């Protein structure tokens, strides 16, 4: 009976508080919009990082005429490393075909190649690690005693990791730094939004402080006084969730139409394919924020 009355009172208060209720909904909407923006921004960042990571690899070039058996032994050795995502082998013949295709219109080069008569190119292994930071481990494996003892060292012409090391290291630092800064910025933005929402709700409840005292004086329990404010807070969260999700509909449509190339991801598709998750995150954040803000604000006036 008490719960039913509390819920009913919460809805009636929300309706009767009119403009004040809507002001609180607007502020909560701003906070939830920050959260949705951060979710979308993270999608853009993750997609960009994935694309960059995909472009990073390590290639082992073999000497001309290197034995295919030795190459295959090395390949299976590398594949057995837990850090390795994939290893692809391009034979000397394939390498030549690719070279020819790439320089199809570069007549002097093709002519020079024809004059040599033999294939001047060696085969190569292309290695992709699961994480950018793991290329060093793979490079160390190639230098390790066990690899050298298999005779692999004698067939390796060069490993481009050492040429790309600076770029890979810098990329690593950027990714790690970007994630740290992103987390900090996210945290700061969310904290600021929560403080603004909390203070708006606190201000609203401040105007009700005398009524809270009267409710206590007529013998209402703390729960009976606090409950409707918390339900009202939850309603702010629910309404603000609906408003926020609706607001992001045209925004993501526009971004999907106009900014997909620039952002590297279609945010409209992302928004819709993750709508359920976003809805849950935003709803829980909104309801939690509304209820906890109300709870803390009312507590001040509920001392006795």
């Amino acid at each position, binding site marked *: *009976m008490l719960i039913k*009355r509390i819920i009913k009172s919460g809805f009636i*208060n929300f309706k*009767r*508080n009119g403009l004040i209720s809507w002001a609180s909904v607007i502020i909560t909407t701003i906070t939830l919009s920050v959260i949705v923006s951060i979710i979308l921004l993270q999608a853009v960042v993750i997609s960009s990082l994935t694309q960059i990571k995909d472009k990073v690899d390590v290639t082992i070039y073999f000497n001309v005429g290197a034995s295919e058996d030795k190459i295959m032994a090395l390949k299976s050795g590398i594949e057995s490393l837990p850090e390795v995502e994939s290893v692809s082998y391009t034979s000397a013949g394939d390498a030549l075909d690719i070279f020819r295709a790439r320089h199809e219109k570069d007549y002097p080069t093709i002519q020079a190649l024809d004059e040599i008569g033999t294939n001047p190119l060696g085969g190569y292994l292309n290695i992709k690690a699961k994480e950018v930071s793991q290329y060093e481990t793979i490079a160390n494996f190639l230098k390790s005693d066990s690899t050298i003892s298999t005779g692999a060292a004698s067939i390796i012409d060069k490993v481009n990791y050492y040429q790309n090391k600076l770029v890979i290291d810098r990329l690593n630092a950027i990714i790690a730094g970007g994630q740290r800064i992103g987390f900090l910025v996210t945290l700061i933005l969310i904290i600021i939004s929560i403080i603004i929402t909390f203070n708006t709700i606190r201000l609203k409840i401040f105007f009700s402080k*005398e*009524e809270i*005292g*009267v*409710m*206590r*004086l*007529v*013998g*209402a*329990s*703390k729960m*009976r006084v606090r409950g409707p404010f918390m339900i009202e807070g939850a309603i702010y969260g629910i309404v603000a969730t609906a408003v926020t999700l609706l607001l992001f509909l045209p925004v993501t449509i526009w971004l999907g139409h106009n900014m997909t190339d620039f952002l590297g991801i279609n945010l409209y598709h992302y928004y819709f394919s993750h709508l359920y998750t976003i809805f849950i995150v935003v709803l829980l954040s909104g309801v939690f924020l509304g209820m906890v803000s109300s709870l803390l604000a009312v507590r001040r006036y509920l001392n*006795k």
Partner: protein
Amino acid sequence: MIYFNNVSKVYDKDSVALDKVTLTVTEGEFVSIVGHSGAGKTTLVKMILAEAAPTEGTVFFESVDIHKLKSTDLTNLRRRIGVVFQDFKLLSNKTAYENIAFAMEAVGKTDEEIAGDVPHVLELVDLGQKSNHFPHEMSGGEKQRLSIARAIINQPEIIIADEPTGNLDPVNAYEIIQILKKINDLGTTVILTTHNKGILESVKKRVITMENGKVVRDDKEGKYTI
């Protein structure tokens, strides 16, 4: 029923609201507490409601020291007291009906009991036609009658009326006092604070006179002598 034992309330050195007050209110009494503004009347009332704690001394409700009660017990005590304030202290976003229903909900009455009793008590204070009105849509007299209706709805053992006529014209003030007298005739203890001379003369009951936080007179059928 209520016993003040050597109670003092000091806000700061220069502001002594109550100075060693000792008095007893017995069951079924109609006690008027009079005095100028700042005499300590409202502080005295606040002590009974545990809205203010004494600096010294104890206040008993029956055998219970009010200021030693835990929050839950205090809530239960307040349910046994009906309060009427000078500024009405109605819940502004609730209708007349809901204001009274709230007091009933607070003590755990069922919806059926609320639906049965609220219209009845509204009729009793002549507000039957105003049950859906909000306080801001009512006159001062109507608000005070609503405040009394809220105070009596749970049949409390004691009604505390703190300057209930302070904001009312003489006709409305007279009506309010008549309602309080009727409530007292039905057996409820009434504590009234006022500085309205005309009211006291119409009540003809015990009068406690306060001055500078002290009880200076306690007359069985008192008059306004300040």
